[in-house]
Structures are given as structure tokens and as C-alpha cells.
């Protein structure tokens, strides 16, 4: 028999459930992009399971379903020894592992299985050529100490070559690397752009194609137009020097050879080559017309100067071979250092010379990228304080990470910002769009009076930048490049207050584009006065 209290309770429960459903739907609508319809199948399934549990009189299962909790151990008659959510418990104790006997983990963390109660060792950091390690944290968090453990294990236990790109240049780091090299019985090479007593570096080795591609890397991101021009010119100069057996050249010598004024000497060398190089001689002659044209002189002088400023002024002595007492020019090549499992350390002084440090970092990463392919040997690369040069070296950074996976290399990135490793990849996507835009603008505006300026920083606005600026007869154009693909539309929305919307693949991107353009002090529509 139905009692009035039971009926009232049922009605109250029904209203309560309806209110909870309406509230949930409202929250779903306001706080997420999901529709309530997404919950219909899940709700139907939950009701079916609860009904089945009631029918089977399985009250434990029904409690689990209603409370959405896993079975507690005390329900199953166990003691309350383990305290943890989800049933997992971890001991805080860290047990050191003998590296020589078992080089895989650096340290093992004891892990207690909640089901079996057994203790298992779990690797905290794996030592492998396929595993990348990213360490981020504030000063004093232990990033460098952890990285030292990894590289020590790789160098001592796995006999891997070690490359350290140190942006800070602390003497203690140098002493540490020296001790590590001595313990491993391998050579230690220190490359410091500010210390003439350190070793010299020969980044130009291999085929003429490879050298031409590598030497222009430092200006690839910042000067896409000059990059193309110089790359084409260097291709011929390198081939002539290679054919004339003046190979490999040092960086200062090659930059000198690229000057338009030196081209007659290159041409003279080409004309002395034998008949087997007749095609190269003809190409050199034909290229001479462009080199001696007003446009060629302007382009090549600008490109060579940019490269010299980016690279050779800071590191001229670093990349100039040392002449020994018996007259031999000697310098370290990374491919041989890698084969000998050496410890190589660059000190780039990013705090005082940011641009030069970035250029040297890019060249070092490009050299290591090629050396890893040639030398079949394990290696470790430690990129310390990568945030200092991330923008310029990001493309190379991504390339070296990929090379590490395929060529027995482990890359360890240390940064103070957790955003930097993600920024490398995000920037890589964005930079592709900026380069594509820069190339197209250079191609379209070559014959006009328009001056194009790329990638400028906005002083006082942190990392905000302007992708491209053009100055022409009609005024200034501020260009922001977006790497989105697909349909791009401008539409108007709203009945009473009509507003423009930027739709990318149907999604409203008005806010993000307004934010980025709003950072620029050169707002569209504003009229500026120049002195």
C-alpha cells in the first residue's frame, strides 16, 4: 500500500533529479562547448546498470555506480594500510642504482603495488638515445644536478660522446666537464668565443653542398632573402674551391671568398680547372654576370655582411684554425670528436652577446646534426638555458631532436620556463608561415621601391614582435602572419550590433587576431609622423 509520505518523497526526489539535470545542463552549456545530448547515451547506460544492480540485489555494485568510487579495500575486508587515491601508493624514498651494473635508470623510485603489495623499481629517467629529457624549474631547483647525473651516466656507462651548449659560461661547469672527461678517459674540448686560449672549431667539412647549406644557417631565420641569395652564390664558390683542392675552407676564408670583390679570383681559379670541370667553369662564368650586376653587388655585399656580423665577428678566432709550430692549421671537427667519444663544450655568453650566441648555437646544432649522421656513435647533447636562444635556434633545435631519435642521440633540454620546449615546436609551425610570407613578399616586391623589414621586436612589450613591416609609396603596412590552413573568411554577425568576425575553418578567431595586432604600437588607421 502506498503511503502519502512515500509519494511525497518520490515527488521530491523527482523534482530534485530534474533540478540537478537542469543545473548540469546549464553548467555544461556555460562552462564547456559540449551539448547535453552528449550525456544522453551515458545517462541511459547508467540507469540501465543501476536497474540491473537493483534487480540482482547487488548493493555493493550499486553503491559503486551511484558514488562513482572504486571499491575500498576495507569493503573487501582489508586493513587501512595504504592511503592513496585510485589505489596507488608511492614511497618517497629514492634508491640509487649501480650505473655500471645497470645503466638504464639513473635513479629508481620504489613503487608499491596496491593489489599485490610487492615493491617494484621504476625508472625515473631513462638513458637511451631515443628518449629526450626536458628539465624545467626555477633557479636552484636541481635541473643542472639532475642533468649532470644523466650525462655522467651516458658518458661513463654507455661511452657516449657529450656535447654541452652552455649559454652562461660558468667556470664550475667547465671544471665539472673536465673531470667527467678525465674519468671517462676521453678528450675534453672547450670552445669559447671570448677566450683565445681555447680550442678552435672547424664547422665546415664534408661535401660542398653540405658546407654551403651549413654556413648560411645562422641567417636562415632572420634573413630569408639574403639566405636564398647567399646559398646560391656559395654553392658555386664551394664547388670551385672543392674542385681546386682548396678544401675544406675555414669560415673567415669562405666569407672572404663570398665578397663580390673577390669573385674575379674565384673565376680565375675556375678557369684553371681541367676539362673535366668545364661545366662548373661555364656556370661560374655565367654566375659572374649576376655577381657584377648592381643588384648582385648589393645583394651579395649585404648577405655577406649579415653573415659576418651574425657569426664571424663574435666567433672569428673560434672558427679560425690554429697554426702550429710546424705550420699546420688545426681545428676540431665534430664528426671526429663524436667518433672519439669526446666531451665538447661551447661557451656562448648569451647574457652579454645574445645575437652572436644564437648564431653560434645554430651553427653548432647544424654541425652536430650532420656529424651524427656521418659518425655511427652514441651521443648526448645538453642544451642549457635554451630559453636564451630559443627563437633563433628553435628550428635547429627541433631538427636535432629528430636526429637524436634516429641516430643514437639523447638530447637534454634545461630551461627555466616550462613553455620553452613547447614553444620550440609551436614556433617551428609559426616560423614556417613567416618564412613563406617573407619569400613571397620578396619575390613580389623585388622590382618595386617597397622596403620589407622582418621580425622586429617591440621595445617594452616583452616577447611581442612584428612579423613583417613594409614601407612603400602608400605608407607603412604592418603584417602579422598566421600559419592556419584552410578557409579564411570575414563575416558580420549580430542583429542589432553588427560586428565583424574572422572565421578560420568556421571557427571564430577574431579575439586572437585582435590580441596579436593590438600589441603593435603601429595600429592600423593611425597616422605617424617621421622626423
Amino acid at each position, binding site marked *: 500500500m502506498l503511503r502519502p509520505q512515500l509519494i511525497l518523497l518520490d515527488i521530491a526526489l523527482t523534482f530534485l533529479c530534474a533540478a540537478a539535470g537542469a543545473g548540469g545542463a546549464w553548467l555544461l552549456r556555460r562552462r564547456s562547448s559540449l551539448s547535453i545530448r552528449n550525456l544522453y547515451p551515458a545517462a541511459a547506460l547508467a540507469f540501465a546498470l543501476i536497474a540491473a544492480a537493483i534487480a540482482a540485489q547487488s548493493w555493493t555494485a550499486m553503491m559503486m555506480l551511484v558514488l562513482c568510487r572504486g571499491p575500498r579495500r576495507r569493503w573487501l575486508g582489508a586493513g587501512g594500510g595504504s592511503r592513496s587515491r585510485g589505489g596507488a601508493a608511492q614511497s618517497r624514498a629514492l634508491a640509487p642504482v649501480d650505473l655500471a651494473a645497470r645503466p638504464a635508470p639513473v635513479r629508481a623510485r620504489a613503487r608499491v603495488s596496491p593489489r599485490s603489495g610487492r615493491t617494484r623499481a621504476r625508472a625515473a629517467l631513462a638513458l637511451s638515445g631515443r628518449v629526450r629529457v626536458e628539465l624545467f624549474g626555477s633557479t636552484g631547483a636541481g635541473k643542472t644536478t639532475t642533468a649532470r647525473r644523466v650525462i655522467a651516466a651516458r658518458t661513463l656507462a654507455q661511452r657516449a660522446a657529450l656535447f654541452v651548449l652552455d649559454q652562461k659560461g660558468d667556470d664550475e661547469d667547465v671544471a665539472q666537464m673536465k673531470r667527467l672527461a678525465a674519468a671517462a678517459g676521453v678528450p675534453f674540448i672547450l670552445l669559447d668565443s671570448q677566450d683565445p686560449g681555447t680550442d678552435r672549431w672547424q664547422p665546415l667539412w664534408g661535401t660542398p653542398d653540405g658546407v654551403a647549406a651549413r654556413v648560411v644557417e645562422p641567417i636562415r631565420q632572420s634573413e630569408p632573402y639574403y639566405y636564398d641569395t647567399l646559398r646560391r652564390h656559395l654553392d658555386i664558390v664551394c664547388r670551385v674551391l672543392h674542385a681546386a683542392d682548396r678544401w675544406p675552407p675555414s669560415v673567415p676564408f669562405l666569407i672572404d671568398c663570398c665578397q663580390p670583390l673577390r669573385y674575379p679570383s674565384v673565376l680565375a681559379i675556375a678557369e684553371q680547372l681541367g676539362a673535366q670541370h668545364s661545366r662548373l667553369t661555364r656556370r661560374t662564368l655565367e654566375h659572374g654576370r649576376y655577381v657584377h650586376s648592381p643588384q648582385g653587388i648589393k645583394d651579395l655585399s649585404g648577405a655577406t655582411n649579415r653573415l659576418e656580423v651574425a657569426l664571424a665577428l663574435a666567433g672569428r678566432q673560434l672558427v679560425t684554425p690554429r697554426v702550429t709550430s710546424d705550420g699546420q692549421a688545426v681545428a676540431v671537427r665534430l664528426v671526429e670528436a663524436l667518433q672519439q667519444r669526446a666531451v665538447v663544450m661551447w661557451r656562448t655568453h648569451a647574457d652579454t652577446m645574445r645575437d652572436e650566441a644564437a648564431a653560434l648555437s645554430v651553427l653548432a646544432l647544424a654541425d652536430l646534426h650532420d656529424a651524427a649522421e656521418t659518425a655511427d656513435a652514441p651521443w648526448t647533447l645538453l642544451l642549457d638555458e635554451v630559453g636564451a636562444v630559443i627563437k633563433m635556434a628553435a628550428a635547429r633545435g627541433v631538427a636535432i631532436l629528430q636526429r637524436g631519435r634516429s641516430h643514437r642521440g639523447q638530447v637534454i633540454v634545461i630551461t627555466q620556463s616550462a613553455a620553452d620546449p613547447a614553444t620550440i615546436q609551436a614556433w617551428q609551425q609559426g616560423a614556417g608561415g613567416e618564412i*613563406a610570407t617573407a619569400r613571397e613578399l620578396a619575390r613580389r616586391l623585388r622590382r618595386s621601391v617597397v622596403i620589407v623589414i622582418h621580425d622586429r621586436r617591440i621595445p617594452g612589450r616583452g616577447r611581442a614582435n612584428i612579423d613583417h*613591416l613594409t614601407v612603400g609609396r602608400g*605608407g607603412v603596412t604592418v603584417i602579422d602572419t598566421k600559419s592556419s590552413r584552410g578557409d579564411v573568411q570575414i563575416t558580420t554577425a549580430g542583429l542589432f550590433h553588427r560586428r565583424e568576425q574572422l572565421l578560420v575553418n568556421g571557427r571564430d578567431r577574431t579575439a586572437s587576431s585582435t590580441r596579436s595586432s593590438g600589441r603593435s604600437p603601429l595600429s592600423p588607421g593611425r*597616422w605617424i609622423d617621421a622626423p
Partner: protein
Amino acid sequence: MTGISVLGALCFPYMRRGWLHYSRARDGLITVDDPRHIAKVANRPGPTSPSEIEQLADTLIRAFPAA
């Protein structure tokens, strides 16, 4: 040299551009288009002479250092 106009552009190098693409926003102050058409905006006619263009470019280079 006064009264130099400034226009903005959002450049999508990988966009799929339809025939009827409408590229002007904010009353024509901002152009949303691919690099080919942005180049046309950059090369718009006007009264600025080549020497003034160079002077203006130098000013902008000094005002906005390389990133």
C-alpha cells in the same frame, strides 16, 4: 615627412582562397589575405618618394630592433 598612413594585414600563407574572397575588415584598415595579395597592399600607390621611403625604413629599424 608627415601623415604617413599605416595599414594592417593578417597574412595567411596557407589559406584556401576562394574566388569571391572578401579581404577587407575594419573599414578597409585591415586586410586579411594571402601573401600575394598582401604584397599588392604593400605596394599601393601614394605620395611618398623613394628617399622618404628609405628614411622612414631607417626610422622604423631604429625604433624596432631585430627580434
